């Protein structure tokens, strides 16, 4: 009996074993198949776009930031013109939305599908240089073209370690829009709107007490705004060598305390502690904010969404500190991907996009400022039309002429995050402004020493 059971058991076990072995084999086969297919997909991803089109043209892709479809009528004819003049080149236009632009770009680099010509904010340039994702342009750029750019902007924004890494495209200074309806409601006129920060608290108090609305809405956290507060007061983030923090000075503290007090005194919205740039824009669009500081190009949004607010708007230069007549200008540039198959052609196309006539036309359409001297001297900017749009250009052009580009410090993003976190701590009352600056100084020095 025992033997019989044992034989049966053996048969069952053997059968089980065979099935298990078969199952294991099939599992291995499927795993191999997965790996094979996976490798194929990864390999396809690595090749990215084909360097040549089917008819043998050189394929150049360029990337812009949130310009499609609004500017199709500008870029598409321009691409057509370029392809006509350069029949051996095929241009492909890619556009990423503003939100998470750089994350998407970095993902494209990760997937090896990054475009050849890349639109970059100037402050991000060091990251791309450090990671070796863009090419130095000194040997690629035409010397005459290089000389055509506003040289101070080129030097501030595009040159690192004596090498040129990107060419400037458009500048976006901020201007101040004023909702005159709120002024009327508060019994004020444009003459009462402060041109200097020193007068801002009293203005905000008046607007708030008479209308229940806010006069001003600064952004505190997004983009390490503390560096702008300090810069406007003439306080640098680091010493000239970029080796030590240089902002923890009496002037730096005074500027920092001013903005923290404005919040703690509740003269500005309490949600400002986490607000991003779209929140003040929404508040302005809905008639809840008297002064909106933003790029003139964003006036398109409230012109379409709230025409009555646009009609009631006036424009003026950003408020300054008394005796500090300097403006910070955001600059957008073109770099060339280090993975491009066609560096020469990519450079030529970047030069074409940023030449005087093309920049001038682009500026007219976008309400941004060109970075080429011939375009800046055009009558369009020097003798603008008498309308809100014309005045926007006049104010923005004036600011650009006085403008400076913020030059990122070493490990810029980390430094900016430190500034953002101490600003948050001071706004929430977890630290005094002095403690916050002391803490920021210590942490920034630690970052700079790496």
């Amino acid at each position, binding site marked *: 009996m025992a033997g019989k059971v044992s034989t049966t058991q053996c048969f069952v076990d053997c059968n089980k074993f065979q*099935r298990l072995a078969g199952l294991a084999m099939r599992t291995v086969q499927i795993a191999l198949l*997965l790996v094979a297919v996976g490798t194929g997909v990864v390999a396809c991803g690595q090749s990215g776009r084909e360097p040549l089109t089917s008819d043998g043209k050189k394929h150049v892709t360029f990337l812009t930031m949130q310009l499609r479809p609004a500017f199709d009528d500008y870029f598409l004819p321009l691409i057509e013109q370029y392809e006509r003049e350069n029949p051996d080149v095929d241009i492909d236009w890619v556009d990423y939305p503003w939100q998470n632009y750089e*994350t998407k770009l*970095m993902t494209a680099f990760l997937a090896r599908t990054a475009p050849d010509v890349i639109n970059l904010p100037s402050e991000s340039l060091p990251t791309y240089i450090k990671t*070796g994702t863009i090419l130095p342009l000194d040997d690629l750029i035409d010397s005459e073209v290089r000389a055509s750019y506003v040289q101070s902007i080129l030097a501030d924004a595009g040159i690192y370690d004596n090498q040129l890494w990107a060419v400037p495209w458009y500048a976006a200074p901020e201007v101040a829009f004023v909702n005159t309806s709120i002024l009327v409601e508060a019994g004020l006129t444009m003459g009462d709107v402060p041109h200097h920060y020193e007068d801002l608290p009293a203005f905000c108090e008046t607007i708030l007490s008479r209308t229940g609305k*806010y006069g001003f809405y600064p952004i505190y956290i997004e983009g390490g705004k503390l560096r702008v507060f300090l810069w406007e007061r003439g306080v640098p983030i680091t010493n000239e060598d970029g080796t030590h923090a240089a902002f923890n000075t009496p002037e730096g503290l005074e500027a920092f305390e001013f903005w923290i007090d404005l919040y703690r005194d509740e003269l500005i919205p*309490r949600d400002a502690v*986490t607000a991003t740039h779209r929140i003040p824009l929404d508040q302005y669009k809905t008639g809840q904010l008297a002064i909106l500081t933003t790029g003139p190009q964003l006036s398109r949004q409230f012109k379409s969404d709230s025409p009555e607010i646009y009609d009631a708007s006036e424009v003026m230069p950003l408020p300054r500190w008394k005796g500090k007549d300097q403006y910070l200008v955001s600059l957008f540039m073109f770099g060339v991907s280090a993975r491009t198959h066609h560096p020469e052609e990519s450079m030529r196309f970047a030069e074409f996009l940023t030449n005087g006539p093309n920049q001038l036309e682009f500026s007219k359409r976008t309400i941004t400022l060109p970075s080429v001297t011939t375009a800046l001297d055009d009558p369009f900017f020097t003798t603008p039309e008498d309308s809100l749009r014309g005045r926007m250009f006049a104010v923005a052009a004036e600011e650009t002429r006085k403008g400076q580009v913020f030059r990122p410090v070493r490990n810029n993003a980390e430094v900016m995050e430190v500034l953002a976190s101490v600003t948050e701590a001071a706004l929430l009352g977890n630290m005094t402004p002095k403690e916050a600056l002391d803490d920021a100084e210590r942490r920034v020095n630690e970052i700079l020493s790496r």
Partner: protein
Amino acid sequence: MKSSAASSRQTMTAWAFLAPTLIVMGLFQFLPILGAFGMSLLDYFPDSPNNRFVGLENFARVLRDPAFWEALKNSVLYLLVVPVVVGLALALALLVEPAIPFMNTFRACYYVPVVTMMVVVAYAWTLVFNTDNGLLNQLLVKWGAAERGIPWLTSEGLALWTVMTVTVWKGLGYYMVMFIVALKAVPKELTEASRIDGANPVQGFANVTIPMIWPTVTLVAIISSISALQVFEEIYMMTNGRVGTSTLVYEIYTTGFDMSRGAIDFGQACAMGVLLFVVILGFTVFAVKRMQGAYGTT
């Protein structure tokens, strides 16, 4: 012999049906997961010539980082949404389970948030919770429940809790549907028998219905716990990870992808991902064992 061949054919057929799913999951889930495990051991940047093996250094850096511990604390705290979700979803399911006129409309209403994009939901709730102009504060002030607007999303003590309410609100409908299905599967004879035996409705619910739907309760608890530990969109949209609301997944995002918040570091982000995996796995095993113990079944 014939039955063995038939069994083999059945197995092959099963694999053939499973193959497309396995391939897709393998490519888009398992391979990336394996890749993340590998990258957590590297100082890695795409295409960089400086990529190198660093062993467990990324893990050591993560564990030394106070921001990680803050995020972990918030993620664990976020698990408090689980009992609330389970309780409210079950209550809603009991309310809308009876087959009476218009009940489908109610069910659909409760399900609408589930199919609405979180980005839209979060933005809408941000407007509701706005300190100065938000609907909620305006009502509270009007009714005299608050003297002035409460900083729902900008106060360190409140912001995380406020975001948690949105998570609960959005997830309720999904879990409610699961409970409705479970409740419908409870044999009516059992509840009737308990009533005949003298049990009141509460006793019947506690001693008959709950044990019968316990596997679903367990499933809802596990799924909602994993979701809670992986929360991201609400935090990203409503507070940007500020005012003490950063969670583990948000921290992974900022470390690995958000260039505005510091140098991006894929290795360290992957190390955090692996640690999150360990946390979720550990919690799930613990929860399953504990819940199995309650009624001896899942």
